């Protein structure tokens, strides 16, 4: 990362150096571009994915799974004296998700029996064919965008320099210290803010190298065409029904990551953080006590 000190424009006399805003070049053009493409593409993949999920809102383990088989997860619409009531069964536990999962209001306020609600799916109405068309179109973009990002990051040293955790960072002591920092909402300042902290590195590595490729691989493992070419892939994942379950779980973990990511962006300073992902320039937070 190149460092450039930008003096705050002052009319009369120079300020002491501690008051200077230090601006670093944080994100490369490739990272910025692929990041924002991903924001759009992953959001729409999620929503079109929920549309596809809604066509059969149940998940199974193994090679097969259909209505007569045991589902480990199922959206429910149960009849009650007051009408249909939505729920989500996970294993043996039934969660009350009425209004969101299982049963939710339609655009005219009518009651819809639906896995995920209209506001969460693409398109908003039930239309598997259109949802699939969106999903596979977006999946191609995700793959191409991901390849550009991975190739650039591997070639220009970004992964090695900025994402790879060091041995010292991975020590229990340093991990614990970072966890405590996060819990206390303390964000690194000065020199330390030039690098990603260890939990941040692990989260990015997890998403970039495990979850997103995992989405592509588990998605392909559900394809009967790919299965004929590489049956070992589906077998390794535990079968097609399992691949679908893992696909869904990975998608949820990505949502969880995005929530934490966005919360952290707000905590660390939304203008500076979002700005750095747009322009590349990041104003280093001042040392504590200044």
């Amino acid at each position, binding site marked *: 990362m190149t460092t450039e000190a930008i003096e705050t424009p002052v009319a009369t006399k120079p300020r002491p150096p501690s008051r200077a805003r230090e601006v670093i070049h944080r994100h490369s053009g490739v990272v910025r571009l692929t990041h924002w493409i991903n924001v*759009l593409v992953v*959001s*729409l993949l999620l*929503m079109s994915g929920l549309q*596809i*999920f809604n*066509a*059969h809102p*149940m998940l*199974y383990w193994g*090679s*097969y*799974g*259909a*209505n*007569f*088989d045991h589902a480990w997860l199922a959206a429910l619409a149960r009849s009650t004296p007051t009408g249909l009531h939505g729920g989500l069964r996970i294993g043996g536990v039934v969660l009350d998700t009425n209004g969101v999962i299982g049963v939710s209001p339609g655009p005219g306020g009518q009651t819809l029996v639906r896995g995920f609600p209209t*506001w969460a799916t*693409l*398109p*908003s109405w039930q*239309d*598997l*064919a*259109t949802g*699939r*068309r*969106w999903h*596979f*179109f977006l999946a*191609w973009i995700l793959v191409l965008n991901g390849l550009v990002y991975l190739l650039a990051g591997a070639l220009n040293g970004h992964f090695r320099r900025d994402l790879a955790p060091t041995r010292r960072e991975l020590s229990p002591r340093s991990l614990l210290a970072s966890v405590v920092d996060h819990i206390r909402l303390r964000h690194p300042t000065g020199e330390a803010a030039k690098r990603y902290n260890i939990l941040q590195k692990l989260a990015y590595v997890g998403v970039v190298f495990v979850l997103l490729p995992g989405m592509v691989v588990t998605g*392909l493992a*559900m*394809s*009967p*065409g*790919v*299965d*004929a*070419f*590489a*049956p070992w892939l*589906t*077998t390794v994942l535990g079968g*097609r*029904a399992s691949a*679908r379950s893992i696909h869904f779980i990975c998608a949820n973990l990505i949502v969880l990551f995005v929530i934490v990511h966005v919360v952290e962006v*707000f905590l660390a*300073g*939304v*203008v500076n953080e*979002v700005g750095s992902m747009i322009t590349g320039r990041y104003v280093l937070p001042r040392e504590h006590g200044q």
Partner: protein
Amino acid sequence: MSRLILSRRRLMSAGTVGLAGLMLEGCDRLSHAPRFQNAIGRTEDLTKASQRLLLTGQPLAKEFSATQISPVFKPNGSVMPDSDAYQELMANNFADWRLVVEGLVRRPVQLSLDQLKAMPARTQITRHDCVEGWSAVGQWTGVQLARVLNLVSPLPQARYVVFRCADDLANTGDASGLYYESIDFFDALHPQTILAYELNGKPLPVANGAPLRLRVERQLGYKQAKYVMRIQLVDRLDQLGRGKGGFWEDRGYAWYAGI
């Protein structure tokens, strides 16, 4: 300054929410726009081309062992064609049923169920993958489509094999709602592409497509036409139905259902 940041912050949150709302509205509009949908649907060609490249060596779809068969093979779509013609055939245990094979062929034929059963049979335990996301494993026995095509000698200009079915899935009451499907010769000549008359060692149940259904194992469930009455060899698909090559294709689904 902190006030300014706070208001900027609020502005950004409000902006994000507003932007998301606009995005959803926009995507719904794009979902209704035929030209946009056609454009993004072109990636289906890319998917087909990539998969066909991977499948050049014509590998077999995974076959399972008898212990891995689903306890119940879920019937989907039509489970009981209600036309008088079909009901009469069913009442007579399909003894009067004939499979008509015609179109761009040298020798059109009509085959009875017994004639099909007298041909060399193939049994395979495969997984049926529904477009909705569920799967079921079943054991199918039938005659390879390639053998039937051999009988009729397709003309060189024949490109697709079309399956005309007895079920009126759209419930229109006329021929426009009858199920049909089509595959090309890449899949038609594949060893696992069979016309199945048995499921799990028993005559094919009506709910699963009696007396004869297609198995084209490297594609999704909607390609596996049930209640096959007539096989037609054609050089183009745009003159059948609404022109997309199948019942569900005419209703927005991809013709190539390998994913």
